[in-house]
């Protein structure tokens, strides 16, 4: 007689035993297993809702891989990509550089949890998570780096995280802390709970829907396939958070507050740029803010209430920044586009009308920025990139390492703090609060400006790009149309 899966499955996943020769604290030291340290009894009720055996995992993943590779065989050739709008390719370059190698760091974080997490069912789920993240590294690396054959900027798929580009410094700062430096408890809160049940849906489901409308079947299929893995292993999150809330609610709240804000800033750049500026207007179904409403405000906020936690204290600040932050960073990035590895676009009259309709609270104050940019291009004519470009290095936040773009064009929210004889500057109140809660973790980090002041990087912008960021002239970002927009011609 064949046993039903439910009849034997617990025997295979609950494999903890009582140690006879060593103490539990020796097997799971707090520094590796995380705080608060609790005896196994506290974790013994740990159940992953999305129960999967290793045999099922292998069979299911093989089917997913076959589906993605079938699409790649059919439409993943360079000539299939060449027919896409150059803006959309910029969105792909942004994704290709920032996500795949972060997923590799997630493999390492999950492997640590697969050894040091406090219940065998949790460890088993984390092990499958580690295998998932390896897939999420390899798939986009192979699909997107391949395009370097006809566009050098795709070389940043591999190079980005190994460079000193300012975006790479910011991305490493958040990803390394979350995936390489966090213990399994913080990892579960930061990655599985906040990142994977909240923000990754924006990029991997929301942007996948946009890829569908753009007609990019390869990217759509890859993102969606990746997120089906995430939906499974993200379930580590709520289960860990519930136990954490029961034993140390304040720590649970602090970790959620910290990671929600850090992820918001990152996704505002990566997904915000892609959805509101780099997707061709004809294919935009919803704005970045609307996707945030669906996936983060509605869905994640409800999950937070369900585990017994409050919205972060800075919630009103966050809600306000939905109308401003990614627009401010995009405008800054456009005027410093040679410091990144992808091209940026000036929103034309139709796009500005769309942005005004989607962002009525902020666009009137943002629109004059683009009026000035357009005027500069009219004066110089096409091809004169540096006439519409900044020349002196800008300031970065001592926590998030992104440009100081908090607030509005009229009211910047930057804050200065003097501490132990050093000056720190933060883009926003939440970034300052996060820094001050764990200063020993962040104080020694040096952003680009501090590296310049220490004589470790050149102050001259062109020299900085070439020798420090590692960008060559044919790689660094330009205006996507070289300033030659039909609507700009008189």
């Amino acid at each position, binding site marked *: 007689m064949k046993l039903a899966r439910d009849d034997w499955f617990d025997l295979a996943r609950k494999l903890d035993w009582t140690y006879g020769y060593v103490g539990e604290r020796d097997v799971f030291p707090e520094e590796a297993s995380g705080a608060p340290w609790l005896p196994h009894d506290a974790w013994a009720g740990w159940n992953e809702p999305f129960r999967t055996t290793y045999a099922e995992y292998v069979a299911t993943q093989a089917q997913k891989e076959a589906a993605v590779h079938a699409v790649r065989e059919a439409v993943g050739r360079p000539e299939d990509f060449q027919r896409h709008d150059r803006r959309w390719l910029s969105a792909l370059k942004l994704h290709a550089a920032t996500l795949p190698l972060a997923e590799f760091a997630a493999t390492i974080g999950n492997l640590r949890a697969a050894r040091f997490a406090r219940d065998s069912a949790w460890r088993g789920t984390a092990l499958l998570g580690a295998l998932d993240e390896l897939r999420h590294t390899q798939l986009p690396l192979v699909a997107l780096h391949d395009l370097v054959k006809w566009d050098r900027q795709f070389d940043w798929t591999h190079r980005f995280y190994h460079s000193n580009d300012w975006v790479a410094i910011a991305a490493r700062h958040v990803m390394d802390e979350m995936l390489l430096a966090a213990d399994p408890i913080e990892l579960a809160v930061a990655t599985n709970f906040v990142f994977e049940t909240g923000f990754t*849906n924006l990029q991997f489901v929301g942007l996948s829907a946009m890829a569908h*409308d753009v007609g990019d079947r390869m990217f759509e299929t890859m993102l969606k396939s990746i997120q089906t893995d995430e939906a499974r292993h993200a379930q580590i999150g709520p289960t860990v958070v519930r136990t954490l809330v029961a034993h140390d609610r304040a720590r649970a709240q602090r970790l959620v507050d910290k990671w929600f804000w850090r992820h918001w800033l990152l996704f505002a750049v990566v997904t915000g740029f892609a959805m509101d500026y780099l997707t061709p207007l004809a294919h935009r179904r919803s704005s970045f803010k609307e996707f945030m409403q669906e996936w983060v405000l509605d869905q994640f906020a409800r999950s937070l209430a369900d585990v017994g936690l409050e919205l972060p204290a800075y919630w009103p600040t966050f809600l306000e920044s939905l109308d401003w932050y990614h627009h401010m960073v995009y405008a800054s990035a456009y005027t410093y586009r040679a410091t990144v590895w992808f091209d940026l676009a000036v929103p034309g009259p139709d796009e500005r009308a769309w942005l005004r309709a989607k962002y009525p609270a902020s666009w009137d104050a943002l629109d004059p920025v683009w009026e000035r940019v357009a005027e500069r291009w009219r004066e110089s004519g096409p091809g004169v990139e540096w006439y519409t470009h900044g020349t002196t290095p800008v300031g970065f936040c001592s926590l998030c390492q992104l440009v100081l773009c908090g607030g509005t064009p009229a009211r910047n929210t930057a804050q200065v703090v003097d501490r132990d004889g050093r000056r720190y500057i933060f883009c926003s109140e939440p970034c300052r609060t996060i820094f001050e809660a764990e200063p020993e973790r962040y104080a020694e980090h040096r952003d680009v400006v501090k590296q310049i002041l220490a004589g470790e990087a050149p102050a001259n912008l062109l020299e900085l790009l070439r020798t420090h960021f590692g960008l060559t002239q044919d790689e660094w970002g330009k205006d996507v149309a070289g300033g030659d927009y039909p609507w700009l011609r008189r």
Partner: protein
Amino acid sequence: MTDGVGPVLEASDGGRAVVEAIRADNTGVVVLDRGAYLRVLVPHRCILRRAAIERALGRPFAFPSDLELVMPAFQGNVTITDDEVVWAWSSSG
């Protein structure tokens, strides 16, 4: 929908069969068509029965593996057995 729960499904034959099975066993089902994906929302509690989806598809369907192939996300806490999948919140919002 306040307190809505349910899966987000890819807009494929498999995903649509899941929607059909959910409609058969729940009341108040809302399906938001986002082009590439379908968001299913049911007030408070959403149940998906293996028997219903096998009827809709006309072939065997295994939980959780066959569901995982067509479900990039979901809302609510999920409980999965060999025969049914339930999404629900553990507290009232």
